[in-house]
């Protein structure tokens, strides 16, 4: 197997990965760096993020406000030291993006503009029309081209971490175009591979969001934290799950049920007027809005369509000029995919899986429990998002912690010697692949097992969960994981074999899904986006803790707990609506 020696390897070239790479290149251009991604960087799912990135810059705002909004938005499961660091650093990171050319939308005086966003007391969401993720990703990718020390390996699918002497010593990857395996031996590895929304059937996430990096770290002994917390974004298009940004509501859009009634007022988010008002009604936090939909559906007040039940998002009152200027992509998407012009008609929407709050457990410097391994972005859990993420915190998170991970990895690589000659890690990975290619017989397919996984996740681990549904899902997942171990490939070629890649992704998804389901089963309370029908309230006495799922091979993971770092915000009631003014 070819061995590539490098000081640092970064897996994932989305917002966090690219930012980490630039941070390494700036910290020390003499450090060799391999930026490994299973897709070309501009395809990374950061590109689909729309609404904006939060950072305090306006005079009417304060870091304190951002801190409190985030901690309460996360239902007090956020580590407050991490949130403090995050809100302090976000403004300068977003400014750095501007200095690198990011086309932020502006006020008339030329300064960066901000818009209101869900769960935030004061508007602080920087935006680039309604394609903020697209502009951030392209700015980072294009900026990365000026650093010669960043060596990219595009379309290399990473399969395993190399662990030697209790240290992370690199990563094994498949060069997708040829099918051959390569070992990257590195002194420090950063995982920035994004979330795992594709374990669910209806999601805003693209095909590539399969939790590969999470699974790699998990299998190498690093626990996955808070996996039970999966965010449903309240407004996705029915059928495709395409994201309709929270920015529509930030600009004044409203949600109505089949009677044209703004139903959110029935769920402690009202009163409906005066509108718009921060942290109230349609600008409430995402978990509460998605939960409200579930209740409306149970009451029969949602609208039935060929692609399932929906509610209506009404932005007609914004007028054509504002829509074209600040929400042009929303208009394009609605016209193309549901045949609706939001200037004249209401957009059908429903909650869809969007963001993985949980992930690879890291400390505030992005270091994991495995020395030499770091993680940043959606794949990691620091945790700044706790039990529910506020919109526009994620795009800020990837640059804050991406930069931090790059610097931490660079410091580690300089302080630690290279490990000895290439060991046997590559052989084990190669053997696993050979075994996969050699399997014969059986009727299981990638798409069959994937569909079964999707179905059980939606029915058992969706917006509302119960002991029965979760147990059932855990059981089905255990069965699927067993069947996965004998599932044959249908394509045994070497060149760009996407059946192979999808099979490997499925393995990662099954592992991540079982961590999610087991964590959810053992958290007997409702908090943020994890809602248990039998335990409808928050239980701080027993569960003001992070869950940690540890890999146990074919067995379900063992779940342990870890205290949340509380500094200056004691758990209180999450209050939205009129009471917040």
């Amino acid at each position, binding site marked *: 197997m070819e061995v590539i020696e490098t000081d640092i390897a970064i897996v994932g070239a989305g917002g966090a990965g690219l930012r980490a790479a630039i941070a390494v290149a700036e910290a020390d251009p003499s450090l060799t760096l391999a930026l490994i991604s299973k897709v070309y960087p501009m395809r990374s799912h950061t590109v689909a993020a729309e609404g904006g990135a939060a950072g305090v810059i306006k005079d009417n705002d304060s870091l304190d406000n951002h801190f409190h909004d985030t901690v309460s938005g996360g239902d007090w499961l956020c580590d407050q030291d991490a949130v403090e660091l995050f809100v302090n650093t976000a403004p300068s990171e977003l400014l750095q993006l501007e200095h690198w050319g990011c086309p932020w939308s502006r006020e008339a005086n030329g300064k960066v503009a901000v818009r209101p966003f869900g769960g935030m007391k004061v508007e602080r969401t920087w935006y680039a029309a309604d394609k903020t993720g697209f502009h951030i990703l392209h700015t980072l990718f294009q900026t990365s081209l000026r650093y010669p020390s960043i060596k990219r390996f595009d379309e290399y699918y990473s399969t395993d971490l190399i662990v030697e002497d209790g240290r992370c010593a690199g990563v094994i990857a498949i060069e997708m*175009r*040829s*099918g051959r395996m390569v070992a990257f031996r590195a002194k420090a590895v950063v995982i920035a591979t994004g979330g795992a929304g594709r374990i669910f059937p209806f999601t805003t996430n693209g095909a590539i969001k399969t939790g590969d990096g999470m699974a790699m770290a998990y299998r190498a002994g690093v626990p996955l934290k808070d996996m039970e917390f999966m965010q449903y974004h309240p407004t996705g298009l029915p059928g495709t799950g395409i994201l309709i940004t929270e920015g529509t509501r930030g600009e004044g859009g409203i949600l109505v049920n089949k009677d044209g009634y703004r139903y959110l007022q029935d769920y402690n988010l009202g009163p409906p007027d005066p509108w718009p008002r921060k942290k109230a009604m349609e600008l409430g936090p995402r978990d509460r809005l998605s939960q409200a939909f579930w209740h409306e559906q149970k009451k029969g007040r949602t609208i039935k369509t060929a692609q399932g039940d929906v509610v209506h998002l009404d932005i007609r009152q914004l007028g054509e000029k504002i829509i074209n200027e600040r929400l042009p992509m929303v208009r394009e998407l609605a016209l193309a995919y549901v045949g609706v012009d939001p200037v004249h008609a209401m957009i059908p929407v429903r909650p869809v899986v969007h963001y993985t709050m949980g992930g690879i457990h890291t400390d505030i410097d992005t270091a994991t429990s495995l020395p030499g391994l770091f993680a940043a972005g959606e794949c990691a859990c620091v945790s700044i998002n706790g039990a529910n993420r506020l919109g526009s915190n994620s795009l800020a998170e990837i640059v804050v912690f991406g930069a931090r991970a790059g610097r931490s990895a660079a410091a580690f690589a300089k302080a630690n010697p290279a490990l000895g000659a290439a060991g046997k890690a590559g052989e084990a990975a190669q053997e696993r692949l050979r075994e996969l290619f050699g399997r014969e017989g059986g009727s299981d397919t990638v798409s069959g097992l994937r569909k079964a996984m999707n179905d059980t996740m939606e029915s058992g681990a969706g917006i509302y969960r119960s002991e029965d549904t979760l147990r059932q899902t855990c059981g089905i997942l255990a069965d699927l994981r067993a069947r996965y171990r004998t599932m044959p490939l249908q394509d045994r*070629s*070497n*060149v760009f074999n996407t059946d192979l890649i999808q099979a490997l992704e499925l393995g990662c998804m099954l592992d991540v899904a079982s961590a999610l389901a087991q964590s959810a089963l053992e958290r007997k309370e409702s908090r943020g986006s994890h809602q248990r029908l039998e335990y409808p309230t928050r239980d701080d006495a027993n569960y003001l803790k992070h869950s940690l799922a540890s890999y146990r091979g074919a067995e379900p993971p063992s779940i342990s707990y870890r205290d949340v770092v509380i500094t200056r915000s004691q758990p209180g009631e999450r209050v939205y609506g009129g009471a917040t003014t």
Partner: protein
Amino acid sequence: MSRRPYVRKVERSWWLQHPRYVAYMIRELTSLFVGLYCALLAVGLVRLSQGHAAWDGFVAAFSSPLGVAFQMACLVFAIYHSVTWFALTPKAMPLRMKGEPVPGIVIVGAHYVAWAVVSIVVLIGAGM
């Protein structure tokens, strides 16, 4: 290595594969006729300098059925050439006035107006 990327050759008939390329090739062809006409006008200038006989011979050739047919063809091609050229001008020269973009149709329209004015001046000068 198992890789064997397949390179598709571009055929000489590439421009027949899609109507937009056929239209493009016709547009490019018109410049041939515009160029030819300019060359013939240059010949005309030379004949003019060579005296009456040469000039009359030139005019006679131009007035022959073949000459007239050629000139009609050139006129058609030159009009097509100009029309397609005008249509593309807003792309090459986006104008802004008072911070707002000038609509394409205004830029194109201005070209037609200029063309009309020049044509009228030339025709008057030619004694029509």
